[in-house]
């Protein structure tokens, strides 16, 4: 048995063998599932990506308008309320939110929103119906994973915009008699939004972490649950591959964020 999996060699040699296989696309064999790791992970990685990208979009779409609103209504009660809300949002652990939403949804709809598909579509081939079913289940994990990021991003957007609003060119724009909505929307927000794109790369680890733990609670077929299982069962090739893949995803994500930043901000391109 040990021989078959090559576990008798010293640690560094085993690692070298595994990593050289990894680059060639041979990830080893899972002890538990008795199958090639390769067969087990791809659709899980795909679902992880769907959820992560979904929550990323959710985060930005919600956080930016709220941040702008908060900054333009500084120290009004609505700003205080949003500030408090964002503190709560930053503080609530994702798994707890997932649990409570689940219980809540069970109370209202009477069906557990477990997993990503209803029993009817589980294992069925891809159809439009299945896709619709996926979206019906997707919103809980997307919101839960996105909420922490939304809260902190909103604070950052608020801070950035407040900084920009204090600058002389905004005063000039106002002095020209531009409408407030033009001043904010056309002059200030454009500048204030820039750092958010570079944060995009930094928020990826949080989102992947969040999706891992939320998936475990909600029983989603993503990387999280299988990673936990493989860690508890010391299924090293599977666990190693999964962690490696998550890190690769992050590096690619960071790269994309950098490219996006260069695309948006010409100052970076020409340096």
């Amino acid at each position, binding site marked *: 048995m040990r021989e078959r999996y090559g576990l008798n060699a010293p640690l560094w040699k085993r690692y070298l063998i595994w990593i050289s296989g990894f680059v060639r696309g041979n990830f080893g064999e899972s002890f538990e599932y008795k199958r090639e790791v390769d067969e087990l992970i791809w659709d899980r990685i795909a679902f992880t990506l769907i959820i992560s990208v979904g929550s990323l979009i959710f985060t930005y779409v919600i956080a930016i308008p709220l941040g702008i609103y908060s900054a333009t209504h500084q120290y009004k009660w609505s700003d205080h309320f949003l500030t408090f809300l964002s*503190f*709560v949002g*930053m*503080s*609530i*652990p994702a*798994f*707890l939110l997932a*649990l*409570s939403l*689940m*219980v809540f949804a*069970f109370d209202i709809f009477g069906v*557990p929103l*477990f997993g990503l598909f209803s029993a009817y579509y589980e294992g069925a081939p891809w159809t439009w119906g299945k896709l619709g079913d996926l979206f019906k289940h997707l919103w809980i994990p997307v919101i839960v994973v996105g909420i922490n990021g939304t809260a902190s991003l909103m604070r950052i957007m608020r801070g950035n915009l407040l900084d920009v609003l*204090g600058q002389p060119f905004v005063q000039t724009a106002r002095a020209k008699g531009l409408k407030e909505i033009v001043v904010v929307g056309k002059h200030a927000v454009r500048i204030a939004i820039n750092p958010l794109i570079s944060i995009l790369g*930094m928020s*990826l*680890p*949080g989102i*992947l*972490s*969040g999706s*891992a*733990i939320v998936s*475990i*609670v909600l029983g989603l077929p993503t*990387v*999280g649950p299988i*990673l*936990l299982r493989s*860690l*508890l069962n*010391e299924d090293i090739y599977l*666990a190693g591959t*999964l*962690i490696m893949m*998550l*890190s690769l995803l*992050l*590096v690619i994500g*960071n790269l994309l964020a950098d490219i996006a930043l260069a695309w948006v901000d010409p100052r970076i391109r020409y340096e």
Partner: protein
Amino acid sequence: MKSTIETAEEIKGTGDPWTDGGQLSYRQLIWRRFRKNRMGVIAGALLLLFYMLAISADFFAPYHYNEINMRLRHVPPQRLHFSVSDGFYVHGLKSVRNPESLELEFTKDMEQRHPVEFLFKDADGRRHLFSSAGPMFLLGTDRMGRDLFSRIMYGARVSMTIGLVGVFLSIVLGSILGTVSGYWGGWVDNLIQRIIEILSAFPDIPLWMALGAALPPGWSSIQIYFGITIILSIIRWGGLARQVRGKVLAYRESDFVMAARAAGAGHWHIITKHLLPGCYSHIIVIATLAIPGMILGETALSFLGLGIRPPMTSWGVLLEEAQRVTVLLHYPWLIFPAVPVLVVVIAFNFLGDALRDAADPYSD
């Protein structure tokens, strides 16, 4: 935003001009500004209270955290009543076996009253602030009949200190490496910065999970505890090191450091006497803001069964029981340990925010 001059005047105006006008130390200034932030002060006081309760949980908790009552499993929370003749009391419990699930279910026995005694002396002769001779479970019991209220108080010990110890470790690591990086620059700086970048690119929970799973199963509770703190701080020192480096870089070329160097001061002297003191306020702020992340990290790890292991208890360990929705629907009070987690984390965030505003001379 107010200008600094205005702020300075304001500060002068609040105290006796003879004793403190213009002579306040930086620390006193921070304290003054901090005191004005009501949320920050409330949060700080709340945290102090929580730490006090956690440290003296032996006294404040009505029961010991491992007191098992197999016949009182999953007792729902009992209401505290008050009457003039009996003082505080709880009703007794009646158990009925559910014909379907065959589980014992508990209801109030209106006949019985168990008075709550203050400064109660238990069978081992230990004193508790309040407890009762009869069963008194204010937040219900878990699957082994242990009092959830007491377990939350004991759990606070682990959950609330793990953040402190972890942050302390990352402060030590982060300040040393940050200073080295900023002070010497060159390839050392380059190397340390690249390491930080690599670390910050990891998704923390999966990595914590992997490291948590790698802790040997034979370890004792204390060893696990320190293992977890080390795991938590291993990823988090990077951010701190970055900030310290930035400060050190800024101060390195400043006149007072130049003067010290010209006067023949050694590296050690310059770093400890001139550079680090300028970073203190920064370090404290970042540390305060890092603690909630660590508390949540421990909670998440223990929740998954990869962190603190029973018989030691923490809020994450308590929440592990509430992991399944079916359990939660039957015994909803098991989610209660989430409340202190939330309160403490929010309080730390408010405190950190208030400290940051206080330490920033340009804040309003």
